[in-house]
């Protein structure tokens, strides 16, 4: 790859003139894990991926394909063995409030009530208590939990906990949302409701979202782009652009042949991945 210097000290991105600078740039990232018995396991192998500002991108693949690991690398929670991940052109060296995670395990602070959880990040960033509280109350209302401000996490259902977790992360205004199978622990109905609500929230401010899931419907329904991965080692098999109109409504989409075709095609892709493992 040749780089043409524009001015001394400034290098042009190869694509800088064509499209906006990527929000997230993953450049030849590999991740090796030491496992027991001195064997190492290649979780991610040579992953390159570029995510534009405001895009909703899902990473899809069978369990063990390293999709969560990739998300943790972007979050700065895990350092890649090789390669670099960048956010807005800066190499990621650790976690930061520009990238807000939402985990399958909710990871709420059990000693804080709903309001306390949502306020936590704002207070950490030095926002005055009254202002943080007002903002948090609005967010709690937005995720549909008005009236539950003083409840503690152990008193809430799984779906409610995840709503709190989403509000807690949105509260400190991250530019990127990192969602690690956020609805994976929820029952089917709750899951659908949260998907709808997440889309509604997302359509207001169009944050960049990196969304890890193993549900094909979920990925197609939510995303602009679906990244299909293989496992052992984790590689990108294919990136599928989901060209469906927004705002999306579930009822319309389920009847839409384009939607159905995306789902069938991607299911076929994943089937191929699993077939290749059996008969390499």
């Amino acid at each position: 790859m040749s780089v043409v210097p524009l001015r001394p000290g400034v290098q042009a991105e190869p694509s800088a003139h064509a499209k906006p600078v990527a929000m997230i740039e993953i450049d030849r990232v590999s991740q090796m894990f030491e496992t027991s018995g001195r064997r190492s396991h290649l979780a991610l192998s040579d992953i390159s991926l570029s995510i534009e500002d405001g895009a909703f991108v899902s990473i899809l693949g069978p369990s063990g394909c390293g999709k969560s690991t990739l998300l943790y690398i972007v979050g700065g929670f895990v350092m890649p063995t090789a390669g670099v991940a960048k956010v807005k052109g800066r190499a990621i060296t650790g976690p930061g409030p520009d990238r807000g995670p939402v985990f399958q395990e909710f990871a709420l602070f059990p000693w804080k009530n709903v309001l306390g959880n949502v306020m936590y990040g704002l207070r950490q960033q030095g926002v005055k208590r009254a202002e943080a509280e007002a903002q948090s109350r609005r967010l709690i209302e937005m995720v549909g939990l008005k009236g539950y401000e003083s409840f503690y996490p152990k008193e809430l259902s799984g779906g409610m906990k995840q709503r709190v977790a989403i509000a807690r992360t949105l509260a400190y205004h991250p530019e990127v949302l990192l969602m690690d199978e956020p609805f994976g622990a929820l029952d089917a109905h709750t899951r659908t409701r949260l998907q709808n609500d997440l889309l509604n929230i997302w359509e207001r401010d169009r944050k960049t979202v990196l969304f890890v899931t193993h549900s094909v419907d979920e990925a197609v329904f939510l995303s602009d782009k679906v990244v299909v991965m293989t496992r052992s080692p984790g590689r990108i098999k294919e990136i599928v652009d989901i060209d469906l109109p927004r705002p999306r409504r579930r009822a319309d989409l389920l009847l839409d042949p384009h939607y159905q075709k995306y789902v069938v095609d991607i299911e076929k892709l994943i089937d191929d991945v699993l077939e290749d493992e059996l008969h390499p």
Partner: protein
Amino acid sequence: MNASQFGRRISPLLACIGLLCVWQAGALALKTDSFPTALEAIRAIPSILGDHESLLNILDSLRRMAIGFGLAALVSIPLGLMMGRIRAVASLCNPLLMIVYPVPKAALMPVIMLWLGVGDVSKTLVIFLGVSIPIIYHSFQGAKAVEEKMVWSGAAMGLSGFQRMFRIVLPAALPEILAGCRTGLVLALITMVTSEMIARQNGAGNILFNALDMAQYDTVFAMIIVIGALGIIFDAAFEKLRRALVRWSEPRFDMPLSFS
């Protein structure tokens, strides 16, 4: 208060009364000098608590216990938390802990007395050692069990390593830490008495063993009751504090383990 709540409140009291009745019956049946009846022992309590000298002795003991316990908590909680979060600290401290764990701390008393004399320092040190182990261990377990994703959530909000330890790991591990402190509190009382048994100078334990030397068995048993009562009072007070601090983690139904 309904009937079941009343029952729960009153049952520890009934247990105490039951124990005293069995004691009374046993002592009456055995009829030996070295085993006074419960009533005789109880009758000897006012003379101990009414005596200025004895009271000062007991207060001395409690002061040492409070200092030993407080210092132990101050050192052990941070150490245990660091062991739970930093692998290098754990692999360094764990073997040391395993060596110190089975040693009865009071057995160290004679050696410590050689170094530091028979005064407050030795006794407080022994209490400190006795209390430290369970608090370190529980803090360690509590910190280890803290969900990684919870710490990550804090990191994403911009909390520094120290802040994550102090504002996420510490509160998340608090129920476990306080369980260790509760054990530690009882151990503090035990080591307090044993330390005074070995370094006979003053204190509650000294009253007990002096009385034993002089065959004043009613005083011996009265002191046992006083120490037991102190244990119950401390435990109940600590339990109240614990509940106030970690109400968020309590299961809905709890066994009534103490007066509260």
